[in-house]
């Protein structure tokens, strides 16, 4: 490997890509387009949940409870009903997420010194919305209950003040915008698709068309073929990554707090790993359809599901948490989020860098060795 002759393949691949205008457009501009869509459309912010209330008690206390419940921006009183049965159809059709029934005698019980209950019905079909709704409602009821107790305490001459006041401070993302979390996360997903899928398909196409045989008979080394095939995609992906950064900053105020060269180093390492994975798949697959399924299942799905992009890894079952440690996107996302949102240097994320480098080295090394064997046959 004294002298690598990658220029011929490189030129050929670039000419092939640029001849296919749509593919080039997809590779360069679509990542940014996706970012726009995802940035606006995706968020978990559960707010303005529709509440249907059947206040059967119609007392001052029951009205106070309902008011306390629905005064935050999270729960919104949308239906006042006369009967408890009217809640069911609203939940069934999805018009309301929460139903509250204040039973007859609610106020009388409390005034007589007895405990009182309100019934809460929650549409749990979306488990996230359901559990957030449950949290808000039970917090509101508890607060109301504590307020009643405080009134009693005051009457009895004991201290009516709340013992602990929480002062929450939100770091890195004070307005709690999902976009700021998801935009850095999208990097991994988009770059993975561009690299793994497009390289594996482009190599397998040569196999399908029979042009791989011609390459084999040419005086080129396996390393030369691999580099010539991958460098064009590496360059295109770097351009795509830059587009993502610009659009994220321009539309979603995602500013990079840390070092930009460091971010690009992470991007290049991650891309190399993805390219290596793409070549590895092309070694195994004989048709583009198979290459496509294998790429989707080894890159797209894990990068979406197991990388921490939207689903917190801490909440997964143990075996998946262990398994997530082979997914490069997981480590890449930690680095990207730390650099972009927290502005950290290499220090806290050097392990992740080391893993990305290892992954890239391993996939490219193995696929080069396999290709070499194939060529010498």
């Amino acid at each position, binding site marked *: 490997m004294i002298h690598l002759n990658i220029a011929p393949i490189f030129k050929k691949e670039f000419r092939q890509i640029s001849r296919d205008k*749509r*593919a080039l457009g997809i590779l360069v501009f679509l990542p940014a387009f996706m970012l726009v*869509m995802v940035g606006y*459309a*995706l968020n*978990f912010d559960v707010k303005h949940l529709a509440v249907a209330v059947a206040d059967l008690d119609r007392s001052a206390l029951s009205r106070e409870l309902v008011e306390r419940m629905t005064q935050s921006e999270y729960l919104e009183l949308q239906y006042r009903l006369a009967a408890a049965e009217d809640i069911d159809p609203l939940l069934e059709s999805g018009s309301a997420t929460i139903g509250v029934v204040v039973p007859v005698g609610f106020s009388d*019980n*409390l005034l*007589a*010194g007895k*405990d009182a*209950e*309100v019934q*809460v*019905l*929650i*549409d*749990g*079909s979306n*488990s*996230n*919305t359901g559990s957030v709704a*449950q*949290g808000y*409602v*039970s917090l509101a*009821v508890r607060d109301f*209950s504590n307020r*009643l*107790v405080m009134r*009693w*305490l005051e009457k*009895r001459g004991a*201290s009516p003040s709340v013992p*602990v006041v*929480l*002062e*929450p*401070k*939100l*770091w890195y993302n004070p307005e*709690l915008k999902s976009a700021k979390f998801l935009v850095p996360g999208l990097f991994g997903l988009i770059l993975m698709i561009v690299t793994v*899928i*497009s390289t594996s*398909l482009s190599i397998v196409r040569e196999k399908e*068309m029979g042009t791989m045989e011609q390459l084999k008979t040419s005086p080129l080394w396996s390393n030369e073929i691999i580099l010539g095939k991958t460098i064009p995609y590496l360059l295109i992906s770097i351009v795509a990554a830059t587009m993502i950064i610009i659009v994220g900053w321009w539309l979603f105020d995602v500013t990079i707090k840390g070092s930009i060269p460091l971010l690009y180093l992470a991007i290049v390492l991650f891309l190399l790993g993805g390219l290596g994975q793409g070549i590895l798949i092309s070694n195994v697959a004989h048709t*583009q*359809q*198979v290459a*496509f399924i*294998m790429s*989707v*299942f080894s890159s797209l799905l894990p990068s979406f599901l*197991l990388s921490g992009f*939207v689903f*917190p890894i*801490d909440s997964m*079952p143990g075996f*998946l948490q262990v398994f997530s440690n082979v997914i490069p996107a997981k480590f890449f996302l930690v680095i990207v989020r730390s650099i972009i949102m927290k502005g*950290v240097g290499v220090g806290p994320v050097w392990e992740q860098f080391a893993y990305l480098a290892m992954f890239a080295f391993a996939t490219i090394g193995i696929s080069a060795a396999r290709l070499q064997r194939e060529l010498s046959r």
Partner: protein
Amino acid sequence: MKAVRELLIKEFLQIRRDKRMLPLILLAPVIQVVLLGYAATVDVKNIRLAVYDGDRSPASRAYIERYTATGYFTVVEHVDDPRDLDAALDGGRATLAVHIPRHFARDVASGRPVRVQLLADGSDANTANISLNYAAQITAGYAESIFAERLARVGGITVPRVSAETRVWYNPELRSANYMVPGVVALILMIITTTFSAAAIVREKEAGTIEQILVTPIKPLQFILGKLLPFTIIGIVEVGLVLGVAVLWFDIPLRGSIALLFGLCGLFILTTLGLGLFVSTISRTQQQAMMTAQFFIFFPFLFLSGFTFPIENMPPVIQTLTYGIPLRYFIQIVRGLFLKGVGLEVLWPQALALFIFGVVILGLSVMGFRKRLG
């Protein structure tokens, strides 16, 4: 009809010849369901907590214990200097940090409100929000018990309390899998039928064999049928597989009618095959076809259908856009059938929308395809 049958046989032979193809087509959806069933959880558990306890009293320890007692929090670090809380968040070791001031016990006992600082890593907005809600509930519970102590001191009376008797419908344990897995049925049906029908047609273009077929007496419509039917059959088989995994492995309740579910899958397939045909008309290579399907169809569909991200949370403009996404209706149908056990009496608007989308998209695609060939 005979021509279509011959084409069908040819297509299935082609699928079988590639030894990796059939296992992949059948295994892939199963893996996908299993992964999604386990991984796609937005439940917030195991919140990593860093604690600075400036008081080190039994009272402050009891307050912290309330966090761990819920099972949602794990204390990963006790720090001696409040500034180390920042480092724990910066390094990602903790996602929530509690700062308990000195004289916590003294102030609580004397009835003076104590200010406890909570530092949350807000980068994951959803997790931060839910963690803060847990903390607020824990603190309200703590207040309840302090009030009880104070009351006991002034006379031992009990004070009435209000509690919420909560019932969660359709998904009582609030399992993420119950919500996500039915959606996977829709997703897989779409990916398989659209991608493979498009790829199967474009492959003939790439190889140049489409001209050969068209000079035979086979009519374009027969060609289309011969290409689309195999993947319709495979798609239906996969729906069956995924349903099996969902019900038997994940215990997802299927409360509605299975027959209706398959019937409505048929309606949805009209749309997906139409899209596949459309993609094949505008693509010259398989790479193009797959990229087009992936980026222009699957991604918008995935993100705008309400599959993972609730449509109600989107800005109004985008909510309006989602009405143009056929998958949106099918996901509502599948979830309604699985979790709520409702039938056509509730789901007819969605079914009608799917029918209209299917007829229009498939009709236009067939017309476009025939024109290209003509």
